[in-house]
């Protein structure tokens, strides 16, 4: 037998390569590498408003949901897509810079980039620099969610650390007529969030997990950015219903009662219309202890002050604010 360094080298390298754990490649295969040229961001959330009932059946949402007491007046087609009404804007913007603080920013810097109005409900996406926030204003409540950026709940220093760890978001629930003061939501729920796989379609990107809510008055929100040349976006839900998003200037937002998922998006561009399919939603493990959003929310410094909740990382936890009935 003779020593052949090259032969030994081949064997050594092969043996070492064989030592790579088998699950490494499998783990790599689960990563979404977003094979496209334009990366867009979006958020999917599902919230839950208690004290109201919402149910969805098949068929057009507007016909079936419009009479539901939870979101009475909701329409599957936006009522308007212009600037927010002064009332809704007033409800929303008073929270920025006070109830919600984003380090390095001020409350004055938030600008609405898209406003979705469906009957008495207004959903506004705000932007300040790279941070975004949303405000969902209904007849008797307002939910503010700074889901992007470094939002923290100002005046919430006494909150539970586990919530502060995940304080990428804040929710404020308001009861009563505008200006009547706020009450804390009675509960915050942690549920098992599904994750949307392969949702990066050509013109609409859904790369973040959806958050499903427990409760009997769920609502689902999808907002984010779209390709600049997309002028209209209509979502077909998993239950067969159709919801037209408010879209324009690179942004879109849509929401609907219930927890149905978006199955596909009909995209309108100057070239025409086409449908882009979302992939299936798969459940992810329930967050472990310490990541839970459940339990008492962080409350403001004064009685009746807005309740500010921390949001776990998108893949780990979700929260839902329950408005008084």
């Amino acid at each position: 037998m003779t020593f052949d360094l090259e032969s030994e080298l081949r064997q050594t390298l092969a043996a070492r390569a064989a030592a790579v754990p088998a699950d490494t490649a499998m783990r790599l295969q689960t990563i979404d590498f977003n094979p496209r040229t334009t990366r867009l961001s979006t958020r999917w959330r599902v919230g839950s408003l208690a004290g109201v009932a919402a149910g969805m059946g098949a068929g057009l949402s507007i016909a079936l949901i419009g009479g539901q007491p939870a979101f009475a007046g909701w329409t599957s087609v936006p009522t308007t897509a212009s600037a927010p009404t002064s009332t809704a804007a007033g409800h929303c913007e008073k929270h920025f810079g006070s109830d919600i603080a984003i380090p390095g920013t001020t409350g004055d810097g938030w600008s609405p980039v898209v406003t979705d109005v469906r009957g008495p409900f207004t959903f506004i996406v705000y932007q300040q620099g790279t941070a975004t926030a949303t405000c969902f204003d209904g007849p008797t409540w307002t939910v503010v969610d700074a889901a992007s950026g470094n939002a923290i709940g100002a005046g919430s220093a006494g909150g539970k650390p586990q919530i502060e760890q995940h304080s990428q978001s804040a929710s404020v629930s308001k009861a009563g007529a505008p200006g009547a003061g706020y009450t804390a939501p009675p509960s915050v729920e942690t549920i098992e969030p599904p994750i949307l796989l392969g949702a990066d379609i050509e013109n609409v990107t859904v790369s973040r997990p959806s958050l499903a809510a427990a409760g009997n008055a769920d609502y689902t929100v999808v907002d984010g950015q779209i390709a600049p040349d997309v002028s209209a976006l209509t979502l077909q839900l998993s239950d067969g219903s159709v919801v037209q998003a408010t879209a324009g200037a690179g942004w879109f937002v849509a929401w609907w009662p219930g927890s149905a998922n978006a199955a596909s998006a009909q995209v309108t561009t100057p070239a025409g219309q086409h449908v882009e399919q979302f992939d299936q939603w798969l459940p992810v493990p329930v967050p472990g202890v310490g990541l839970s959003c459940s339990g008492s929310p962080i409350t403001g410094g004064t009685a009746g002050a807005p309740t500010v909740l921390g949001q776990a990382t998108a893949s780990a936890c979700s929260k839902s604010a329950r408005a008084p009935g």
Partner: protein
Amino acid sequence: VNAKGDTGRYEFERFVADTSDRLVRTAYLLTWDMPAAEDLVQDCLSKVARRWPKVRVMEHPAAYARRILVNLVVDGAKRRSRHQAELQQGAGPTVERADEGVAREMSSVEARFVLVRALGALAPRQRAALVLRYFEDLTEVETAEVMGCSVGTVKSTASRALEHLRAELAPTVSDSPPRDTAPLVTQHGTTQRSEPT
């Protein structure tokens, strides 16, 4: 349905499924570090994903990905720095387990173990040349293409790497003449055919 978008996505997913195993093994040999290898392949596939419309029509997309991988290693100053720091601190548990596993399978445990460690101590560019030549079984011309250098540079780089390995192996094999290490001494001292020209 936007067939073009869906097709591209599914093609890329198949590409990842087909190539990720080989890429991560190559990356492991290039970096000599498992976590770094996994990070490296993620970076590599992300780059491929961004260029997928062009990559998918290439004759050998996998070769393109391998080239990105090698470039990430060779040109990655930060990774090199981290790698050097890890070498100075000693191999981590994963590496040690792998080394031991490799060594156990070898006919000359000590010599092979030294070889593994010597490979890990090579400069990234030298190790890349050897990995491409002796693991990927590329020719010198193909290796030069992947590394983005001339064939002459590949030859000299590989030659210096092999010289380094021989130098590292010499004390071990000479100190252990019995058994199958004895032939190693003889061959090591006399054989020139393994030297790249």
